[in-house]
C-alpha cells in the first residue's frame, strides 16, 4: 500500500469536511493510505503572500519538513495549499541562502527542510498514481447517464511547473469517465472562480461564479465536480447570492471529485459527506444510482 503524508489544510477541518471524509474513504478503497501530518499549520493561503513572502515560505516549509521527517511525499487536497507548498519547495531548493535562513527558524520546532519530499495535489494521486484504469476496475456503481462538468480552476494547473500543456488538460475528464459518468465539455472549465475575491471584491467574484455556472448548465451539466474547497464554496454556497444579485435561477450541485468517485465505488453517500451541501445533490444523482449495480469489472 502506497502511503503519503497528508496535509488537509484549514478548510477541510469544517467547511469542506466532506472533502476530507471522501478523500479518506476513496483512497482507502483504492489501496492508498493518507497519513495526516501530526501538527500541520495553515499554509498562509493567499493572504500571507500579500504581506510577507519570507514568512509565507516558512509556514509552508514547516509542513514540508514534517513530511520529510516521515520520509513521505506530501499530498494536499486544496489547490491553494498545493500551489503554496509546491512553489515554496521550489524556492527553497533553488536558493540555498533562503533555505539556510528558514532552516534556522525551523530548528526552533526541531525540523529541517532538505527537499526530499515531493508535493502532489490529491487529484494527481488519482489521475497519475492510481490511474483511471485501476479506478474503473473497482467501480461497482457506474454512474451511467450522469452528465458531470469537471472544474479544474486555477492552481492545480497554474503557474506552470515545467513545459507541460496547461491549456488542454484531460486528466479530470478521464477521472469522471472512469466513474461511468459523461464528462461535460464546456468552455470555462479552466477559468477562475474568483478565489478570495469573494471576500475582497464580492461582486466581481459573484459575476465570475455566475459565468462559470451558466456555462456548465448551458452545456447540460447535471452536476459540477471540483478539486478545491475554495472553488466548491464559491460555486455552491454563493449560488443563492448570485441568483439574488443577477436574477438568475441557478441550482446546480457542486461536489468534490472524491465524492463522485466514492459513489461509483459503492460507498454510501453519507460516508462521503453527501448531505452537507446547500444545493441538494441527491435529486441529480438518484437516477444514476438507481441503475442496476454492475459486477466489478476485472
Amino acid at each position: 500500500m502506497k502511503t503519503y503524508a497528508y496535509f488537509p489544510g484549514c478548510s477541510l477541518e469544517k467547511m469542506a469536511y466532506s472533502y476530507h471524509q471522501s478523500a479518506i474513504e476513496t483512497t482507502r478503497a483504492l489501496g492508498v493510505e493518507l497519513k495526516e501530518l501530526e501538527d500541520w499549520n495553515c499554509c498562509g493561503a493567499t493572504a500571507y503572500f500579500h504581506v510577507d513572502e519570507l514568512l509565507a515560505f516558512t509556514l509552508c516549509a514547516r509542513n514540508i519538513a514534517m513530511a520529510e521527517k516521515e520520509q513521505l511525499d506530501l499530498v494536499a487536497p486544496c489547490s491553494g495549499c498545493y500551489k503554496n507548498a509546491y512553489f515554496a519547495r521550489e524556492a527553497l531548493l533553488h536558493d540555498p541562502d533562503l533555505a539556510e535562513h528558514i532552516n534556522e527558524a525551523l530548528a526552533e520546532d526541531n525540523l529541517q527542510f532538505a527537499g526530499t519530499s515531493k508535493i502532489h495535489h490529491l487529484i494527481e494521486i488519482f489521475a497519475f498514481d492510481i490511474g483511471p484504469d485501476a479506478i474503473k476496475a473497482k467501480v461497482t456503481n457506474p454512474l451511467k447517464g450522469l452528465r458531470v462538468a469537471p472544474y479544474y480552476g486555477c492552481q492545480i494547473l497554474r503557474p506552470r511547473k515545467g513545459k507541460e500543456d496547461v491549456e488542454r488538460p484531460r486528466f479530470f475528464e478521464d477521472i469522471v469517465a472512469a466513474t461511468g459518468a459523461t464528462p461535460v465539455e464546456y468552455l470555462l472549465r479552466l477559468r477562475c472562480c474568483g478565489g478570495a475575491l469573494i471576500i475582497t471584491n464580492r461582486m466581481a467574484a459573484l459575476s465570475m461564479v455566475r459565468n462559470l455556472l451558466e456555462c456548465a448548465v448551458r452545456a447540460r451539466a447535471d452536476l459540477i465536480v471540483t478539486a478545491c474547497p475554495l472553488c466548491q464554496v464559491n460555486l455552491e454556497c454563493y449560488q443563492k447570492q448570485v441568483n439574488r444579485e443577477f436574477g438568475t435561477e441557478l441550482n446546480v450541485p457542486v461536489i468534490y471529485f472524491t465524492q463522485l468517485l466514492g459513489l461509483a465505488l459503492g460507498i454510501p453517500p453519507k460516508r462521503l459527506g453527501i448531505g452537507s451541501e446547500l444545493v441538494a445533490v441527491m435529486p441529480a444523482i438518484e437516477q444514476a444510482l438507481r441503475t442496476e449495480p454492475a459486477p466489478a469489472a476485472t
Partner: protein
Amino acid sequence: MSAVTSAQPPKEVDAGVSFVEEINHLLYAAKGNPINTCIQCGTCSATCPVASAGYMDNSPRRLIAMIRAGFKEQVLKANTFWYCASCYQCTVRCPRGIDIAELMYGLKRYTVWRSEYQEGLIGPSFSETFVKMIVRTGRSYEPVLATSYLFTYGLPEIIQEAQTATALMLKGRLPLLPARIKRLDNFRRMIRKIIPLGEPE
C-alpha cells in the same frame, strides 16, 4: 543575500533608481522576465477574468505601461493588484514570459509596507487580519476573518452573508471554536526568527 523580500519596508531608494527598476527589484525572486520586456500586446488584460468583467480601474497591460512611464502615485492607488484573484492566467499566456500575477503580489506587499493603497479596499485589512490570526494560532478561522470585511458591506449584503452563514452553520460547516496547532510555543519562536520584531501579537 536571499532573493526573497523580508518584512521590513524596502530601504529608501537612491534618487538614481527609477520606479520601474524598483518594481523589477521587487520581482527579483520571480522566475519571469522583467517588465521592460513587455510589448504591450494586451494578452494579459484580455485573458484576465477580473479586468475583462470591468472590475479593474486599470488593466494589467495598462498598469505595466504606467509603471514604465514612472506614474508611481497612480500605480500605487490603482485597484488592479488588490482585485487580482491570483489565477495566473496572464502569467501562463504572456508571450514575453513575464510573471504578471507575481507582479500583482509584489505590488500588494509594496503598498502594505508603505500603507499606501486606495481607500475603501477590503484586501489589505483582510490580509493583515489573516496574518495576525495565523501567527496567534497556526490555523485560520472564518468567523474572525469576517469581522475584517463585514463592516464595509451595506445592509443588503450583510443580510445575504448572514443567510449564507446560517445555512452553513445548520449543515455543520462553520467552526464554532478556533483551532490551534499543538506545538504553538515552538511555532511562535520559529516566527520570531523570521520577524525579529518582539511579540507578534
